[in-house]
């Protein structure tokens, strides 16, 4: 079985490398070991989304039963998205679960993840806090997601107001990621974020 897995990954690796998306720098894969079980994926944040300009790194683990079972994928780059855990990077996407089909490839997975960044499904959330913000205050969500993209994925849109709020909390002795999480969870209300951090 592992034989087919390696055979397939070898082939798919080539497929991605040759693909037009690579030419456009939209997706990328890298092998991390010789037996084709661990890979690093990369997707570019889609245009006209808060993720635009960011580059998101993915951990891809290929199970022995691949392609009869889906690859295990999670975000290494921290991201603010209803279907992706802001803590672990775990992804809630049907094709990575029961909607996987053996004829799908890593390229399909990466493109589907990119599509997920363009169109979130807040009714099937992985991160409840993010999903609530998305549904209740879309503008706030976009601002937050954009700021996460600038902090972790190299995105160009730095929000100075957000930055100064984070700095105020950092000055109180919390680390900047903790500060970002607290502020993001409380719609950038610094008082409530402080209260949550020090209670």
């Amino acid at each position, binding site marked *: *079985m592992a034989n*087919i897995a390696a055979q*397939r990954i070898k*082939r798919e690796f080539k497929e991605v490398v040759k693909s037009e998306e690579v030419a456009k720098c939209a997706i990328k894969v890298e092998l991390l070991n010789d037996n084709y079980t661990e890979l690093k994926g990369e997707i570019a944040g889609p245009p006209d989304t808060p993720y635009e300009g960011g580059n998101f790194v993915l951990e891809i683990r290929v199970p022995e*039963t691949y392609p*009869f*079972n889906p690859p295990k994928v999670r975000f290494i780059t921290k991201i603010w998205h209803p279907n992706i855990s802001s803590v672990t990077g775990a992804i809630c996407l049907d094709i990575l679960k029961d909607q996987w*089909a*053996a*004829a799908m490839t890593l390229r399909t997975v990466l493109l589907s993840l990119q599509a997920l960044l363009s169109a979130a499904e807040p009714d099937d959330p992985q991160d409840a806090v993010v999903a609530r913000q998305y549904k209740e205050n879309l503008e706030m969500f976009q601002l937050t997601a954009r700021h996460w993209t600038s902090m972790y994925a190299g995105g160009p849109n730095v929000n100075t107001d957000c930055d100064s709020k984070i700095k105020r909390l950092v000055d109180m002795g919390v680390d900047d990621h903790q500060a970002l999480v607290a502020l993001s969870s409380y719609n950038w209300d610094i008082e409530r974020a402080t209260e949550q951090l020090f209670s």
Partner: protein
Amino acid sequence: MEDTMTSSQGGESDMDCSDNEYYDEYYYTLNDDIDIEQIDPRKIDPEYFEFNCLFEEQVDRLLNETVETLSNMHQISPSLAKVLLHSHQWNIQEVTRKFKENPTQTLIASRIKPPSPPISLTFSRYINCPVCVTSQSFDKFYSLSCAHMFCKDCWTMHFEVQINQGISTSIACMARECKVLAPEDFVLKHLHRPNMREKYQQFSFQDYVKSHPELKFCPGPNCSIVVHSQEPKAKRTTCSQCKTIFCFRCGCDYHAPTECQVIKKWLTKCADDSETANYISAHTKDCPKCHICIEKNGGCNHMQCYNCKHDFCWMCLGDWKSHGSEYYECSRYRENPNIAHESVHAQAREALKKYLHYYERWENHSKSLKLEEQTLEKLRSRINQKVMSGLGTWIDWQYLFTAANLLAKCRYTLQYTYPYAYYMDGGSRKELFEYQQAQLEAEIENLSWKIERAETTDRGDLENQMDIAEKRRTTLLKDFLDV
């Protein structure tokens, strides 16, 4: 199906044919030929339920009969008939109706056919399998009705991986976004290892039984019996093999008069609140008159202090004399009529008080049931001694066991009246319910008291008490068991 074991529950409450022995199977086996068929048991016994306990082969036969009927009716393969039936909860009328209306749509909805007709493009002798990415000759390839071609080794591996994850009837095609299901014959054609074939058949059997509303797996440990009933209701089912008693509808412990959802809610609540309610579990209380510590060692809630001989109720510590009277109030919870105007805090306290009232009684009857089981064991050994020393035969003492069984049955129902009452809205119906519950409770305690002193109690007196208790039980169920 001549070899099924037919057993039916109930038929035991003889409201209309009054005589001495009532409640046990012993009576029926002796009196099989007595003419009782004029009485419709459905009308007399609110718990009457007809069911069969089937072995796996019998279930297979039952399912296959339906499969064959459908397969012959519409000229489709038995495997496809199975997929159709499984996706329609084995309702053959429904399948037939839909099939006549729109056969194509029915096949698409049941995931037998793809939504749009397949286009097959391959004419070359060699094709590349999209899954294992190897080029093989055309004859190594197979497809479902969707025409998505994959090599036979990939099909085998796909099925094995799915089966190892417990999936059987819902294995789909390997193509992207293709929902077409692999029917049984197709799967079996590609499974070669005997243990895989066996696993596949075992898992699909479980799926079929679970999707069939007239079939239920016996919840008993390591029991493979499947119960069949044409009237799938929340009724008492007793497994003929392992004797487990359960509700046919939800498979949990039988719970009349409470409904399936309500008992689930109640049991969850009890599990969540077990800490709060823990203090009740104490086995000792002080005598309300002389304050000596009394331990409860039987199931009866009618207590008599060994010191001062005061008769009192274990539950409410009230005088037993007033309990026995026409209006037994111990089971009733009196709500504070002004509670709506009280503070949130007071309301919360009142809610807890109310819950504890019902929980206490629920718990207490559950404990009494266990204690009465011990009483029965003691009784058994005492009777054994009597029989050994020539004081009558087992048949002579049989009535005592009959009485003990009836007591257990009545107390069981009584226990399950408390969650029912807890979730009931106030009003005249609740008043009637609590009145009947109180009546039942009083008669059950009388019966328990008499059984604990069985050897000195007059047999006629005991049997009279049995009759009364069972009548109270059936009356309550008739009025409130709504299935």
